């Protein structure tokens, strides 16, 4: 018996406008591969400049899209959402990418890693993330995840002579592939039980199913969640995070710690809040997401207490932040989504700032990794130390910084959804986190004693300074002039696809 083939729908040419930012960036990625061949080693900085131009162009089209996507719709037969939500995520990813590109050349030069592929791989990964942000079909989600993952596998092993870097890459690769297996199995089951791969159709199918329970479907949802939880490094799927963050070159860590999480959360919100969110089965099931959120907050913060590498510390901190952002996801409310978006923006600007300090200050041939390397930074680089303190305070959630309002909004979302315990878990772990953030901050202001080695910090380049100024200002702006980003996040939530569920 032959399958009845539905009529082929040819995508209209206008649909390309919906993926214009991604296309531009992908173009940049390909062009960079070519340009690398004709650029001499001394001029690789120009590749960075070109990549920046590509990012800027993509950002321009994102901004244009923001105004164009007043009425959200899907393109390419419903597999890609052209909505402000995706564009908001795009903007975060693009800005982060740009900031990483700015600090990269100096760092790579110092570490002797300055190869042209770096920039194309960054753009490739960014493209994948942007696609993921807009993906509204399981297939596109899978493709985007793999695109960004493969690029990141290579990037984390970019320090070709360093065992640490290899180890990071191997772990990321093997565990990432392993997680992909779960993700894919979940997708397969969902597809099989609903008959669809497009989110809107899945949502409709679930609505029709009503209260009936389908164990295989539920298993599929669980496995899909496992796959995505791996990407956002939520506990208990977080174990790769500290190792990979520590081993990868710092600029790469900077990049992936922020952007991967942002993109994966975009999908998580699309799938779990807006596709599955309203269904009765999900309502009973979401306790697992609760558990993951709480576990992430606890594990991330508690494990960070006893670290001695700044990169690892920020890795654990990232796990904890994932837990906080998950609060915004599980409460299934517009406020929760907005809070998550705000959190992602705040997290991006703060975390890039923090990692940027480590990247910028890294010395020749070595990463500024251990706590000791921060000791006494304030005496020689007062402004850098002040900036780092600001970022750490923001991560710790002190007002008036971005981190405070980020946490404030997710807690508010939890309380408004009558989930006070979730907020209490959040604050308890936040209080714990103060300890390790402040310990690092304190270290920078401690004068090294005579017998302690003094780390040889690099000079801050113009680009590095600019990044710090931008991220520092961003941290404060998000902490004081809240309405600015809040309004945008609200608009982003307003236009999210698949619509109508919440």
């Amino acid at each position: 018996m032959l399958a009845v083939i539905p009529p082929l729908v040819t995508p209209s040419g206008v649909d390309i406008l919906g993926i214009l930012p991604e296309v531009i960036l992908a173009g940049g990625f390909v062009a960079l591969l070519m340009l690398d061949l004709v650029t001499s080693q001394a001029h690789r900085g120009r590749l960075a400049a070109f990549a920046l131009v590509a990012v800027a162009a993509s950002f321009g089209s994102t901004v244009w899209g923001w105004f164009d996507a007043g009425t959200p719709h899907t393109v390419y037969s419903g597999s890609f959402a052209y909505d402000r939500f995706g564009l908001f995520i795009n903007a975060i990813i693009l800005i982060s990418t740009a900031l990483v590109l700015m600090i990269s050349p100096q760092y790579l030069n110092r570490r002797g890693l300055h190869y042209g592929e770096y920039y194309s791989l960054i753009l490739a990964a960014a493209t994948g993330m942007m696609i993921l942000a807009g993906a509204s079909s399981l297939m596109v989600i899978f493709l985007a995840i793999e695109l960004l993952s493969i690029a990141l596998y290579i990037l984390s092993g970019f320090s070709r002579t360093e065992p640490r870097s290899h180890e990071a890459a191997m772990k990321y690769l093997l565990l990432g592939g392993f997680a992909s297996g779960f993700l894919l199995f979940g997708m397969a089951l969902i597809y099989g039980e609903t008959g669809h791969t497009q989110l809107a159709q899945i949502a409709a199918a679930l609505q029709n199913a009503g209260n009936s329970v389908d164990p295989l479907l539920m298993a599929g949802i669980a496995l899909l969640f496992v796959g995505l939880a791996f990407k956002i490094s939520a506990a208990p799927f977080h174990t790769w995070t500290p190792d990979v963050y520590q081993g990868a070159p710092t600029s790469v860590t900077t990049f992936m710690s922020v952007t991967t999480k942002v993109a994966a959360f975009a999908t998580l919100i699309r799938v779990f809040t807006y596709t599955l969110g309203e269904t009765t089965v999900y309502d009973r099931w979401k306790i697992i997401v609760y558990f993951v959120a709480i576990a992430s907050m606890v594990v991330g913060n508690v494990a960070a207490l006893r670290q001695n590498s700044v990169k690892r510390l920020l890795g654990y901190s990232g796990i904890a932040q994932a837990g906080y952002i998950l609060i915004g996801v599980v409460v299934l409310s517009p406020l929760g989504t907005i809070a998550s978006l705000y959190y992602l923006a705040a997290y991006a600007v703060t975390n890039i700032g923090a990692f940027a300090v480590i990247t910028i200050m890294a010395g020749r041939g070595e990463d500024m990794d251990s706590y000791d390397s921060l000791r006494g930074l304030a005496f020689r680089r007062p402004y850098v130390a002040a900036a780092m303190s600001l970022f750490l305070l923001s991560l710790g959630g002190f007002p008036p910084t971005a981190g405070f309002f980020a946490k404030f909004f997710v807690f508010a979302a939890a309380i408004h959804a009558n989930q006070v315990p979730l907020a209490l878990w959040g604050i308890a772990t936040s209080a714990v986190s103060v300890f390790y953030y402040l310990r690092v901050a304190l270290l920078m202001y401690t004068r090294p004693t005579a017998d302690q080695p003094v780390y040889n910090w690099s000079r801050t380049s113009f680009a590095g300074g600019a990044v710090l100024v931008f991220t520092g200002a961003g941290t404060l702006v998000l902490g004081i002039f809240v309405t600015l980003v809040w309004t945008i996040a609200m608009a982003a939530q307003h236009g999210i696809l698949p619509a109508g569920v919440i």
Partner: protein
Amino acid sequence: MNATNDFPFLLGLAAFLFSIGALGVLIRRNPIVVFMCIELMLNAVNIVFVSYGRYLNSEEGQVFAFMVIVVAAAEVVVGLALITQVFRLGRELDVDDLDEMSK
């Protein structure tokens, strides 16, 4: 065979293969074998896609399976390159050796 009748069997086979793959990841220490196990998991999923596609009379499953194959190939390329590089640096091919940072 009837698509409806052998469908549970196919699904069971896929689950079985997936489990073997997962178990291999847990047990084997050679990264190349681990990698192969991961590929096995992906291919098990492919079986699910294809059999669902047939069961549901929809082509999306098949398309998805193709995608997975392509992606798996890409992953293999990167993975093998990485493993080779580790090997070239004179290290044993044993995933248990990759725990430098946690020490």
